[in-house]
C-alpha cells in the first residue's frame, strides 16, 4: 500500500477518485440495464398475453355432418335458380338439424331439447355449402359431408376456456339399475371415491355453491349428470346415450365450476358435444376462416378478410399520396428552399403537425373529405387520404433527416464536375438517402396501419360483410375491427380479437423487417 501511494498516478487521492468514477460507471450501467429489462419485460408480457389468447383462436372445432342433399328441401320449388339455392339457409340448416336429431333421437320429441340441439351449429354456417351446391347442381340428391364450425361457446368449452373444470377418472362401475324415468343408479366398490372426495374438497372451498355445480359422468358417447354421489354409488340423470354403457366401464367425471344457469352452454349440450367427439365427428382444425371469412355476428363464422383488404386498400391510397408528396416536400425543403423566415415557419409547423393527435386528423377528414368534397363514407379512399395527412409529417421529417445525413462533400463533388443542382440531387443525394427515406416512409405507414381513431370518425367502423373491391367501397380496417370486436360481449370474441391483433402485428413485423433489411443492405460508408 505504501508502495502504491508513492507514485504520481497511484496516490490515495487518485485511487479514491478512480473508485468513485468506477462506482458511477457501474451505477449507470445498472440503471441502463434495468431500464432495458423493464421495457423487455413489459413487451414480452404484452406479446405473451396476446399470443396466448390468439393461440386459442388459431384452431377451432368443426363438426362433420353426413347429409343427403334432398332436392325437396334445398330447392323446394323444383326449379330454383342457383341464387335462390345459395340463399336457402333454412333448407340446408334443416338437413343438418335432422342429422343431429337422428344422432340424438331423444331430443326429437322435446321442443326445448330440440332447440338446444340445433344450437350446436349456427344457421349461417351452412352458407358455404349452399354456395357450393348452387355452383355445382349435380351434387343435388347426393350424399355429402358438411363440415361446419361448432357453436362458439361449445368450442370455448372444449378448449377449456368456458368454465373451470376438474376432470377425474373413476373406478369400475359394476351395476346399473334403472330408477324412475331417465334416472339410474350406478354402483361399484369405491368406484366414486375420487369424485366424492373432490366434491367434499370443493364444498370446503366454495360452500353450498358446490350443489349448483354440475358433475357429468361420461363413458364413450354416453353422458349422465350426477345428482347424488357416495363412495360406492351415484345417481345420474341420463343426458344422452345408453345407461348400460356404464356397466363394466371406468367413466370419467367432470366437475364443471360454473353453474349451468350462469353458462351459455347447457349440460345437455356439453353431453352431446362429448358424444359427437367420441364418435370422431368433432375435430380441431386450423382456424383458416379467420383469414378467409368476412365479419359476422357469430364469432365462429367471423373472419378478418374484409378488414385485411380494407387495410391494404387504405395503405395503398396512403402510400400513393403520402410517399411522393413527402419525398418531394423534403427534397425541396432540404435541397432547394432558401433558408428564410417562411421556410423556418413551414419547418416548425411540419414538426408540430407530427405531434397532432390522430383524432384531430379524423375530424378534419370528416369535415373536409366527407363534408366539403362529399366523398363516400367508410371508404378506404377517405381513410387513405386522412392517414396520408397523418403520416406526411413523419415521412417528411424522416426524409429530411436522411437527406441531411448525405455528406455535403458528395453534393460538392457532383457540382464540381458540372452537374446541375437537380442532377446532383437526383443522381447522387436521393439514391444515397433512399434507404433512409424508405425507412421513414415504411415507419410512417406502419403508424398509419395501426391508427384507429381517425378511421372511426370517417365511418370505417361499419359492419362490412363483403370484401371491398375498390377504394370507394365500404370497408373497415384491421385496427377498427379489433376495436369493434373487443367491444362485443360474447366471450368467444376475446381470443378472436387477440388473433386479429396478431395479424396486425404480423403486418407491422413484416414492414419493420423490410426496414431492417433495407438498412442492412444499403447502409453505406462515405
Amino acid at each position: 500500500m505504501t508502495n502504491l501511494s508513492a507514485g504520481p498516478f497511484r496516490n490515495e487521492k487518485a485511487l479514491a477518485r478512480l473508485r468513485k468514477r468506477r462506482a458511477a460507471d457501474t451505477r449507470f450501467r445498472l440503471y441502463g440495464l434495468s431500464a432495458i429489462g423493464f421495457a423487455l419485460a413489459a413487451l414480452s408480457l404484452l406479446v405473451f398475453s396476446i399470443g396466448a389468447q390468439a393461440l386459442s383462436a388459431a384452431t377451432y372445432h368443426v363438426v362433420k355432418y353426413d347429409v343427403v342433399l334432398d332436392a325437396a328441401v334445398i330447392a323446394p320449388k323444383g326449379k330454383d335458380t342457383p341464387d335462390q339455392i345459395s340463399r336457402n339457409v333454412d333448407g340446408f340448416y334443416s338437413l343438418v338439424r335432422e342429422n343431429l336429431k337422428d344422432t340424438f333421437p331423444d331430443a326429437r320429441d322435446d321442443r326445448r331439447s330440440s332447440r338446444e340441439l340445433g344450437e350446436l351449429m349456427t344457421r349461417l354456417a351452412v352458407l358455404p355449402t349452399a354456395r357450393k351446391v348452387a355452383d355445382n347442381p349435380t351434387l343435388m340428391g347426393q350424399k355429402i359431408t358438411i363440415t361446419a364450425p361448432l357453436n362458439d361457446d361449445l368450442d370455448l368449452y372444449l378448449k377449456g376456456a368456458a368454465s373451470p373444470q376438474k376432470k377425474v377418472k373413476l373406478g369400475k362401475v359394476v351395476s346399473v339399475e334403472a330408477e324412475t324415468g331417465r334416472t339410474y343408479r350406478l354402483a361399484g366398490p369405491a368406484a366414486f371415491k375420487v369424485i366424492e372426495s373432490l366434491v367434499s374438497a370443493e364444498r370446503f372451498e366454495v360452500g353450498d355453491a358446490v350443489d349448483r355445480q354440475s358433475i357429468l359422468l361420461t363413458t364413450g358417447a354416453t353422458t349422465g349428470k350426477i345428482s347424488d354421489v357416495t363412495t360406492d354409488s351415484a345417481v345420474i340423470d341420463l343426458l344422452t346415450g345408453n345407461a348400460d354403457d356404464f356397466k363394466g366401464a371406468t367413466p370419467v367425471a367432470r366437475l364443471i365450476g360454473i353453474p349451468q344457469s350462469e353458462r351459455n352452454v347447457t349440460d345437455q349440450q356439453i353431453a352431446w358435444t362429448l358424444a359427437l367427439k367420441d364418435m370422431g365427428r368433432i375435430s380441431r382444425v386450423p382456424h383458416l376462416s379467420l383469414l378467409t371469412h368476412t365479419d359476422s355476428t357469430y364469432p365462429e363464422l367471423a373472419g378478418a378478410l374484409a378488414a385485411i383488404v380494407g387495410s391494404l386498400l387504405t395503405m395503398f391510397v396512403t402510400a400513393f399520396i403520402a410517399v411522393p408528396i413527402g419525398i418531394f416536400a423534403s427534397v425541396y425543403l432540404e435541397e432547394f428552399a432558401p433558408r428564410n423566415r417562411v421556410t423556418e415557419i413551414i419547418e416548425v409547423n411540419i414538426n408540430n403537425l407530427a405531434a397532432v393527435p390522430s383524432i384531430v386528423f379524423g375530424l378534419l377528414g370528416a369535415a373536409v373529405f366527407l363534408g366539403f368534397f362529399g366523398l363516400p363514407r367508410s371508404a378506404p379512399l377517405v381513410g387513405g387520404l386522412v392517414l396520408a395527412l397523418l403520416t406526411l409529417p413523419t415521412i417528411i421529417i424522416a426524409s429530411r433527416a436522411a437527406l441531411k445525413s448525405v455528406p455535403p462533400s458528395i453534393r460538392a463533388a457532383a457540382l464540381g464536375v458540372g452537374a446541375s443542382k437537380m442532377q446532383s440531387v437526383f443522381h447522387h443525394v436521393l439514391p444515397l438517402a433512399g434507404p433512409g427515406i424508405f425507412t421513414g416512409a415504411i415507419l410512417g405507414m406502419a403508424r398509419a396501419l395501426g391508427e384507429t381513431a381517425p378511421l372511426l370518425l370517417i365511418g370505417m367502423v361499419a359492419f362490412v360483410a363483403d370484401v371491398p373491391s375498390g377504394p370507394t367501397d365500404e370497408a373497415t380496417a384491421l385496427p377498427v375491427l379489433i376495436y369493434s370486436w373487443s367491444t362485443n360481449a360474447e366471450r368467444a370474441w376475446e381470443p378472436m380479437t387477440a388473433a386479429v391483433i396478431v395479424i396486425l402485428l404480423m403486418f407491422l413485423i413484416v414492414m419493420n423487417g423490410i426496414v431492417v433489411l433495407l438498412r442492412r443492405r444499403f447502409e453505406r460508408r462515405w
Partner: protein
Amino acid sequence: MESTVTSAPPATSPGTQANEPERLTFPRIECRDINVFYGDKQAIFDISLPIPDRSVTALIGPSGCGKSTFLRCLNRMNDTIESCRVEGQIIMDGENINDAAIDPVLLRSRVGMVFQKPNPFPKSIYDNISYGPRIHGLAASREDLDGMVEKSLRRAGLWEEVKDRLTAPANSLSGGQQQRLCIARAIAVQPEVILMDEPCSALDPVATARIEELIDELRKRYCIVIVTHSMQQAARVSQRTAFFHLGILVEMGETDQIFTNPRERRTEDYITGRFG
C-alpha cells in the same frame, strides 16, 4: 462550349504561348477587385490576381485568410453557399464569369475542382469517372466513354492500379488513390482550369509525392490553381505564388522570387514560419 467564347483575346489562344515568360504575361483568368462577403462579414478584400495558363499558381496564407473562398470564386462554388456574395470581375476568355448571365453549371465543366478530402461518389471507379462526360454528353458511344475513362485515369496516374477493377467501389481505394481518382474525375470533363483546395492534406508523404508529380504533369495541359499549407509543396509544384493574409492579397509573384526574396515583411515572416 466554344460558342460562349465571344471575344477571346488573341493572347490567350494556344498558338502564341510559345515560351515561359510570355505565358505568364497573358493570364488565363484575370480577377479584378474581388470582394467576398459572408452575410455582413467580408472575407476577401479587393483582390486582383491574374492566373496564367499552363502553369501552377499556389495560394498560401494562414488559416482563415480566405484562400478557399477565393478559389471557390473561380468556379462559382460560392453560389452554393447561401449567405455568400461575390463582387468584382473574373474574366475568362473575355467574359466575366461572375456575371449572373453565365451558367455556373457550364462554367464548372470548364473549371474543375479537387477538394481537400477525397470525395469520390459511393459508386464504382468507372462510374465516378464517367459521370461527368455522361451528363455533359461528351461521349458518343460506350467505347468512347471507355476511352475517356482510360485516358483520364492514365493522366491521373491511376490506370495501372485500377484497370483490373474498374467496377470495384471507389471507396475501396486508398486515400491517395481516391484523391487521384477525384483528379481523374475532374479531368474527365475536359476542363481548362483545375482548382485544388489542399489536395494533399489528408495524404501521407508518398501519396503526396505522387500527386505532386501528377500536378507537374498536368501543368503542361491545364491552368492549375492550388491552395496549400505546405511551403515546400508550394515551392515544389508552383510557378507563381500568391500570399493571402486576412482576406487581403499581400504579395504575388514568381514562386522563386516569393520564396527567396519576398518584398513584404509579412510574407517573409509567414514563409519562414514566424507566424501563421
